[in-house]
């Protein structure tokens, strides 16, 4: 092999190696970070034609309506738990921290977290809709036909 060809061969091998490594790395990182979206009934009854249920410890996203009256706050910390519903069963969400501005009972929200029991999720992120017009499309689809409730936040009893 003459030196020029050898050089080219080396370059080609390096490129193939580089491309392969990149693709492998990307796929590996992707696999770890794809979070499936469930509605509460899909979570409990299974999703899709095969009724696939998530396993305990799986990271997932869930979207539904906050069941009115289900929000329970811890007195001494910022722990809060509430139930989500779409059409069928309810799922409990536990969260620690400050809920978003537009979090209300009876509103659609999306939570991201880890499944700890068949119908319980420890959320690390809770997202609410951004304004009156906007609702996560996934939630809108899941809760078609359910009536929204007006906010009942009292501004006058501060201090």
């Amino acid at each position, binding site marked *: 092999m003459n030196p020029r060809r050898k050089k080219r061969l080396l370059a080609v091998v390096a490129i193939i190696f580089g491309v392969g490594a990149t693709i492998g790395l990307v796929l590996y990182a992707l696999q770890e970070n794809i979070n499936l979206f469930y509605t509460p009934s899909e979570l409990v009854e299974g999703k899709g034609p095969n009724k696939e249920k998530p396993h305990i410890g799986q990271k997932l996203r869930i979207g539904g309506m906050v069941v009115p009256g289900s929000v329970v706050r811890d007195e001494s910390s910022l722990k809060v738990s509430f139930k989500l519903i779409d059409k069928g069963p309810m799922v409990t969400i536990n969260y620690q921290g400050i809920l978003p501005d537009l979090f209300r009972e009876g509103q659609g929200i999306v939570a991201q977290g880890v499944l700890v029991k068949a119908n319980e999720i420890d959320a690390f992120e809770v997202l609410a809709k951004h304004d009156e017009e906007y609702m*996560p499309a996934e939630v809108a689809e899941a809760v078609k036909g359910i009536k929204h409730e007006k906010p009942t936040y009292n501004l006058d009893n501060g*201090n």
Partner: protein
Amino acid sequence: MIPELGYFSLTLAMVLSVLLCIFPLWGAHTGNLRLMRAAPSLAIGQFVFVLLSFAALVYASLTDDFTVSYVAYHSSSTLPWYYKITSTWGGHEGAILLWLVMQAGWTAVVAMRSQSLPWVLRARVLGVLGFLGVGFMLYTLLMSSPFERLLPYFPVEGRDLNPLLQDPGMIIHPPLLYMGYVGLSVSFSFAIAALLTGKLDNTWAKWSRPWTMTAWGFLTLGITIGSWWAYSELGWGGWWFWDPVENASLMPWLVATALLHSLSTTEKRGVFKSWTVLLAIAAFSLSLLGTFIVRSGIIVSVHAFASDPNRGMFILAFLAIVVGGGLSLYALRVSQVKSEGRYKFASREVALWLNNIFLVVATLIVLLGTLLPMIHKELGLGSISIGEPFFNKMFAILLVPFAILMGMGPLLRWKQNKWSMLQNKFALSAVVSLVATAAWLYSSYDVIAPITFIATALAVWIVVTTVVDLAAKVTIHKTLGEGFKRLGLSYWAMVLGHVGLAFVIAGVTLTSAYSVERDVSMKPGDTVALNEYQYRFDGVKPIRGANYSGHAGVVTVLKNDKQVTVLHAEKRRYDIGMQFMTEAAVDAGFTRDLYLALGEQLSQGAWSLRIYHKPYVRWMWLGGILISLAGFLVLGDKRYRQKSTKQEASA
């Protein structure tokens, strides 16, 4: 009356842009100089009428004309006047009109500042810009007119501007970003014109470069301001969410960054010609793709406005024409292009080539992460999301070789280098960077993760090598003053851009590694300590603004029992939409931000509060501003201001 005039004015602009598309391109094709000469005045006329149209919308908004549907939905009579103006781009229709103003504005500026170009090229550039103008105006007139009326039943009060958008950052963020997006259409037009002409020599690169740099500068500034807005307005201290809309702006930025490095190589060395053209096409296509993603409603985010599938289809079709047309022309003409320069492996050419590879790989990763969930959903496989860790991990991995190369690049010469002459400089820079980083981090922090050290060291490495190169280049002249003078603005632009990125890297790394966050429940009088600061909650007081009311949590920040500042973290409720907004209180500093957000009211007079200590977070935006300055600096370069007398048509 005024809104109808606005619509009419836009129709006239559309007619002019159709002419702007046809006359010069036909003239250039047939060698008709008179047709080509019509281009500049058509371009300016188009701009004037688009501007009038925009003025009509601003007028309608300022005068609270709620018979105009757009104003009724995006403004209200209680809105302060400056937000009334910004509300004209707070919604979909108005934002597209602003886009048109930018598009027509760039076209007019190109028309006025391109006298030095041969007529054939000038006419073709303006013709392609005219074509793009036709596309966007057709879209506005047919599908998204902001001038539609709500007659005869119109509301007496508007629906108000989304409170999230009532922020100074939001006043300037969209115009800057659009300046960048649309500015890339100029690079695109230059590339297409050069392909049509068949002359892809380095003069083409020389002409395209200042335009690309300016557009890129605006894009950088737009993204930076957007990040700062998200930080100050969304209330949870984040500055980048890998949200599809953010990704949509990052992709053109990455490709445009590759483009301007590639352009400089093409200009100076006559290599990478066809690649440069491809990048110019890709950069603008990605800004169109971004528009498609945002406007079509296939994604949901803060930025997604009321969406309409027809609109998405129109933009998708337009995107197909632009990308398809551009690439076909490229395929037809690219075989004529030949590289002139020769170079060895250890050369600046190869360094820049690698820079391009890394930037394109980064773009592909963002593209994959953005489009995959959409494709997945459209295929009926269910909805998925791709988490931030994916992007963070990929960018962290790419950063290492990219930053090492970035430090070495400026020290390399064109064509070839002797390794023995460079290794001392590199070794010295590496040692200095490692020592400086160790001294910096170990004096400030107890725990240092390897990744934090590496990333910080890379930022320092970029600065050190830049200084080493600068010192070497300045000292070869007799006096320092002369040395500085001789360097030229393009060189300074590079220094600014690279140092700016080093600031961004350091800021992102340190704030990610050492931010401390606490969500606490506090009663008046309670004190919480976070790092070296104590936060004393002094209770809440009611507040009242022009169009909102709410509470401000008053927190006194102390350090060693001395008062540092008093922060007012607000929780607002906007009168019209009844939306709640957290208005975070920030005590900004060069090396740290203290960030406070008021949460909800708990029982027994307690409130939840979120307290952050964010070290070096400002460096990120400071870096962004430095980088964008690099883009504007090139405008002052004499090389791009030379006026040639060549005004002959040579078709």
